[in-house]
């Protein structure tokens, strides 16, 4: 069964650019219990979609159903089923993380006992025990973000919207959050998250959608995205080639003193031989999700510019 169904959703902001749609005819379904990632460049429309689905924003056209309920017409049926980490949200600064989690659970109607247990559990799982009784205003930015994410994840709501939940977190903290998010999904929650960390999307999501200019460009697994592009191998050269030379074999990215080429399997042999002849060091590997993303969205940008 699908937890979320979006049907021809478009959004034009009332105060915004007249001609521009923040979302264009988005169709999407997210199965129950799925961990779904939303990827896209800044301004692609990720937050707009999340706000519409989380009953925060009215769409211009189309409808979104959450567990069968229309988010516009039946918000009071949808709201008890959802919880949301807003993009760049900040916790109440005078509360401690422990109070923050507990009080929010109580506001949402949890009993004292269940709120207490869930609070301690989540503080532990998110590595917040050491600062649980410090007011948020004395915590570092990443710690405050953890307190906010902990607050939302503790709700165990059937549908969790997480808009850039790991923003500003260190690599250890991010992994802790991943684990808690995975556990929420295992317990049956459906999760829709956005992130600009492609490794995170790859590690965490069952499925993902790439959105650009308000349109869904791809929807499927990370693995398939890497394969469908037709360039499934990445070669990294240190010296020996110019990027012009490599461009005829595929997409080229240059960084510092290396050139990265995304290309097809068929080209690998001849290119590595050329590299050996020229004394260039070459590393061969599979494309990363980040590269597949750059390839997919980059194509769109080139088409627009052409």
């Amino acid at each position, binding site marked *: 069964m699908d937890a979320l169904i979006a049907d021809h959703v478009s959004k034009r902001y009332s105060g915004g650019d007249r001609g521009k749609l923040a979302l264009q005819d988005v169709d999407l379904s997210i199965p129950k219990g799925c961990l779904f990632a939303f990827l896209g460049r800044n301004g692609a429309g990720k937050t707009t979609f999340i706000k519409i689905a989380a009953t*925060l*924003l009215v769409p211009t056209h189309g409808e979104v159903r959450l567990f069968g309920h229309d988010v516009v017409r039946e918000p009071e049926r949808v*709201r008890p089923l959802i*919880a949301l980490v807003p993009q760049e949200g900040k916790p*109440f600064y*005078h509360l401690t993380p422990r*109070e923050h989690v507990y009080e929010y659970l*109580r506001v949402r*109607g949890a009993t004292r006992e269940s709120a207490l247990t869930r609070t301690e559990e989540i503080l532990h799982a998110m590595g917040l025990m050491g600062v649980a009784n410090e007011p948020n205003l004395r915590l570092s930015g990443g710690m405050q973000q953890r307190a906010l994410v902990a607050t939302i994840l503790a709700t165990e709501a059937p549908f969790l919207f997480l808009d850039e939940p790991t923003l500003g977190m260190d690599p250890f903290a991010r992994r802790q959050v991943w684990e808690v998010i995975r556990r929420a999904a295992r317990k049956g929650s459906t999760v829709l998250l956005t992130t600009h960390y492609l490794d995170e999307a790859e590690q965490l999501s069952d499925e993902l959608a790439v959105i650009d200019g308000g349109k869904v460009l791809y929807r499927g697994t990370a693995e398939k995205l890497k394969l469908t592009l037709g360039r499934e191998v990445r070669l990294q050269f240190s010296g020996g080639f110019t990027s012009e030379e490599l461009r005829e074999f595929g997409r080229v990215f240059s960084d510092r003193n290396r050139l990265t080429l995304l290309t097809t399997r068929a080209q690998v042999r001849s290119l590595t031989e050329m590299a050996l002849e020229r004394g260039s060091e070459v590393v061969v590997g599979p494309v990363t999700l980040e590269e597949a993303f750059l390839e997919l969205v980059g194509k769109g940008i080139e088409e627009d510019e052409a």
Partner: protein
Amino acid sequence: MSIASQLRAAGHICYFNGIIPLWRSPLLIAAVFLTPFSFLFFLRVISTPELFKFGVVGGILFTVLFTGNGMLNDCAYLRLERQLQQIFVASPVRPLSYILGMALSELAFTLPALALFLGILFVVVPFGAAVFVALVGIVLLTWLMATSLGFLISTFFRQLREIWPIGTLVFSLLAVLPPLFYPASRIPSGFQWVAFLAPSTFSAQLAEAVLGLNQGSALSPAWLNDPWFDLAGLVGATVLFGATAVYLARWREP
């Protein structure tokens, strides 16, 4: 959630947004005291004991009305700076519970000041239990009116810095200019009705009537003196602002 749960939600919001900050930074109380107390001090120095009584009533109402300014700033701050209103929208909490919880926390900030002013009032105009209950009623209605208005205004802005001057402007117009600290009869006759364009005038007239302060100084036209007119005006304004806040409030962005 049931009505009881919604009320409990409001209580929790009041606790963590009002009581805890107050407990951690008691200096916040001083901020509430400062302005009405300065007014009162001036009045004590420059006016008669008879007029000072009006000043104390004014101090009480000023304090209550500025819960509206606090509401305006706090709600805007939580929504725009911290993105926190979103976590309450995307939850079983109803707009009314959120508004009530926030309004209660604003009231919590002013309770110490209100208690002090009521104490002073009791010294200058001794009153009985019935009058006390009536005063509490007036305070509560005025608080609901002011905080609804504050919330309502807050929802129409997208920038915190645009809000600061608006709040000060609106609530100063409500709390300083109208006859709160002075008797309405001091306004030139023929213009006295103008004062009633500010709903805070109803609160002041009602409180003064309950305390028996405005005897022998009638307003014209005569119906302006009727306490029932004041009560109807205050209740009307409260219902109007409250209902508009709940129904028009931008709980969901357009």
